[in-house]
């Protein structure tokens, strides 16, 4: 039993992704990332993203299709991200998917991008050993560039939103704090790498617990990071545009990352306890 063979197309943000999935097994997965393209502006410019999707989507499709080595006759359907995301970018993937479905007479399914993040946990890489599927009920934490939320699932496609960010997504906070510390875009991996070099780990940032709720807030933390960076500058006698010492950047990156991860982990575990979840899924 291998399950249906699907072609799936994603273009909601700054990556053009096309995959072939058979049941839970990924047969091909090609991603063209625009990170380098957006680095110059320190963030995603929607029009730039949409242009790059249109330029790269057919080469990405060709590569994924060749990797998968499947036949149109064997394909059971086409899935495409319909939202949420950048309208101009989404349209590229959607129109390519529609046209492929029309030409090859295949069913087309629109998929919510956030559900995609959750369901990625079910998939198996090409070479990965079989493993059991996540058990219901479960709690899913999605942390991505644009979204941060906790959801309870009692069954397939049955969701109850437990909490979400009330301001920035965690990924946005990482980008902004990364820029503040003079690190590369995107901020997530850059802060993680910088934090690994921290020798002193006593810089504590506030945790926004938001009472008993499962909501998240990262804007206060962002302000705290800015103040800490400014203070470090003053202490070292540095001007506004002078580069902070590597050790200071590492320390601040570590403190910031700890604060974000601490809140994410604590709320997820508490949600799992309180809802009686049998598994936890993390996506993003």
């Amino acid at each position, binding site marked *: 039993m291998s399950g249906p063979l699907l072609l799936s197309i994603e273009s909601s943000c700054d990556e053009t992704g096309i995959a072939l999935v058979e049941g839970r097994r990924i047969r091909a997965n090609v991603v063209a*990332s625009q990170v380098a393209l957006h680095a110059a502006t320190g963030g995603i410019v929607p029009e730039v993203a949409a242009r790059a999707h*249109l330029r790269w989507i057919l080469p990405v499709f060709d590569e994924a299709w060749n*990797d998968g080595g499947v036949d149109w006759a064997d394909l059971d359907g086409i899935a495409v991200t319909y939202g949420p995301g950048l309208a*101009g970018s989404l*349209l590229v993937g959607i129109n390519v998917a529609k046209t492929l479905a029309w030409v090859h007479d295949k069913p087309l399914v629109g998929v919510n991008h956030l559900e995609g993040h959750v369901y990625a946990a079910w998939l198996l890489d090409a070479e990965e050993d079989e493993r059991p599927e996540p058990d219901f009920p479960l709690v899913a934490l999605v942390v991505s560039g644009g979204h941060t939320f906790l959801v309870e699932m009692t069954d397939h496609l049955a969701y109850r939103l437990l909490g979400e960010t009330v301001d920035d997504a965690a990924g946005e906070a990482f980008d902004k704090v990364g820029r503040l510390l003079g690190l590369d875009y995107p901020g997530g991996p850059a802060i993680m790498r910088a934090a690994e070099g921290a020798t002193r780990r006593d810089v504590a940032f506030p945790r926004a617990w938001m009472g008993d709720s499962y909501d998240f807030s990262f804007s206060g933390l962002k302000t705290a990071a800015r103040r800490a960076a400014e203070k470090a500058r003053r202490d070292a006698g540095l001007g506004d545009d002078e580069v902070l010492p590597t050790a200071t950047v590492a320390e601040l990156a570590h403190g910031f990352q700890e604060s974000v991860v601490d809140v994410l982990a604590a709320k997820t575990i508490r949600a799992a306890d309180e809802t009686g979840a049998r598994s936890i899924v993390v996506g993003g």
Partner: protein
Amino acid sequence: PAGHRHGETLLPTIGRFLGEQNIRRSRIAGIVVGTGPGAFTGLRVGLATAKTLAASLGLPIVGVSTAEALLAAAVDAPSGDAAVGRPVLLMPAGPADRIEVRPGASPRLLPDGTEPALESGETLVALDLVDRAPPAALERGERAWAGFAAALVRLGVERLIRGEADDVARLVPEYVTLPRGVSATDGTVAWSRDPR
């Protein structure tokens, strides 16, 4: 205009047209697509659909400048007034700016408040610029629009016959303007088979 709606109507319209004309897909010999200038969203819907059609049906594709086709249609159009002479096309570029295009030349951006400078023998043909262009120019624009699709196909077929098909992957709209605060929109795009 409303680009999103193109995405809902384009394929059904193509399907209906082929049905009405009783044309089987296997008889299509090539794809011609207008590449702008025009509204970005509408252009992307058209290009994404046309490119995918060409790639998946294994057909050659040619992109034809929308301005070039409109200029050709303006010359061909039966004119109410005197002959159109040498047309200069005026089109919107966003809510305030406009672009002017002369046959064989690249589009020129006219920032808000800048008027096109016409030489003698040139006539203005304006499109999608209600209240932003002289009424006579808009009328010529309407007559040109009526012959636009035919002109687009004619120019495209001429190029197809000459064997001048475009690279389907690289074909993108003629954007004319860059997004605000951006100095280039092409650049490195990193590839990966395994994003993790």
